[in-house]
């Protein structure tokens, strides 16, 4: 595949809404390789939506550097699809005319796929082409917004909680469609979500934000193999402990895998969900130092 190696690259990224306001993003450095399905997680107010809006070029960073498909946003606009949480769509138009509008607005790229958009909008219990946007439910609007994103045949899809207001059947269907898009076209997908089991199967990359900073970032299999879940008693000297919780007379601790495990502790490989939850619970505290190699 041609094109840049990184789909999204942030270096010392800072964002604040107004000079006197607190920083929403502070010194964020991470990179998402092209072709990955990246989950963006973090507590409410962590800066996930801000980060996606910056990548989409709707906001300008207050400091630091951000590159999307090798360009400063919105430089690669034609190759990027962005679905905002609020799904702003013209209320008085019908679904069919919104898709026609999508085709018009993306004429210059020459890549608009009416069939890709229509498959998402109309198939499998989908929408009536003649229905007006204002008559649609939140989940149905999401379907229209995703149809536009698929029709665009973008190389990068930025999705802000795309599945939040979908019913379970639509969720499975549209997540399947997203994965198929990634399989067929090598599309990079960055999506924020609070639903960890959903991310566990679909994402092969993860960025975890907490308090405006990057707490964890990397390939999912590397993140999993770089942590270990310990159960036992005794001191944990020299271990880089992410989270420590009492269990009976001893404790359960999620630690970064280091040189040697402490004697007398039972070690198992944690699930992605366990790792993310531990980091989320401790997201307001100091970040656990990360090894340069991770």
């Amino acid at each position, binding site marked *: 595949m041609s094109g840049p190696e990184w789909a999204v690259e942030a270096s010392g990224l800072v964002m604040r809404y107004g000079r006197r306001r607190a920083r929403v993003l502070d010194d964020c450095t991470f990179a998402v390789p092209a072709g990955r*399905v990246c989950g963006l997680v973090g507590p409410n107010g962590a800066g996930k939506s801000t980060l996606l809006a910056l990548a989409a070029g709707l906001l300008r960073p207050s400091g630091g550097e951000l590159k999307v498909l090798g360009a400063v946003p919105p430089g690669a606009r034609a190759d990027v699809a962005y679905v905002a949480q609020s799904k702003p769509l013209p209320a008085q138009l019908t679904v069919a005319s919104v898709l026609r509008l999508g085709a018009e607005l993306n004429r210059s790229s020459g890549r608009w796929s009416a069939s890709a958009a229509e498959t998402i909008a109309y198939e499998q219990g989908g929408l009536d082409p003649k229905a007006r946007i204002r008559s649609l439910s939140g989940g149905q609007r999401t379907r229209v917004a995703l149809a536009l994103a698929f029709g665009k045949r973008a190389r990068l899809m930025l999705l802000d909680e795309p599945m939040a207001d979908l019913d379970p059947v639509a969720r*499975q269907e549209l*997540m*399947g*469609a*997203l*994965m*198929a898009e*990634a*399989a*067929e076209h090598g599309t990079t997908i960055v999506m924020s979500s609070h639903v960890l*089991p959903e991310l*566990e*199967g*679909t*994402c*092969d990359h993860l960025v975890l934000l907490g308090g405006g900073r990057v707490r964890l970032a990397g390939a999912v*299999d590397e993140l999993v193999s770089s942590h270990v879940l310990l159960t036992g008693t005794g001191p944990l000297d020299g271990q880089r402990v992410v989270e420590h919780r009492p269990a009976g007379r001893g404790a359960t601790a999620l630690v970064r895998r280091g040189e040697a495990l402490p004697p007398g502790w039972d070690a198992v*490989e944690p699930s992605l969900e366990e790792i993310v939850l531990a980091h989320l619970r401790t997201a307001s505290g100091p970040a656990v130092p990360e090894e340069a190699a991770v």
Partner: protein
Amino acid sequence: MFAYRIDRRSGVATYVQIVQQTKQALRLGLLDVGDQLPTAREVVAATAINPNTVLKAYRELEREGLVEARRGMGTFVRRTLGRADHDGLRADLAAWAKRARAEGLEREDALALAAAVLEEHFPQGREGEAG
């Protein structure tokens, strides 16, 4: 077409589930030599899992010589697995299970015992590893 069933709560890595289900399909005759496995696109559209997981499973099956990837065409079954047709072994096991029950073992006790003996005679295969 052959379809995979992914159980996200089983604790078994997703790619291992695909490998195991393919082998089971070969043993049961649901898949035979020359049959095409579903494409990665088809699998992920139906199951909403990451495409790389499917590719990882297919690479593992290819490494074991069970399937081959033909460029631009798909992945095809190369070799099948022995069908489970072992009446004698089954009868022995049935007699053992009957005796275990008569001696007062619970279902879990019997399973644990059988698992321990199996582990002795079939040391942990690669499939059991997490990843």
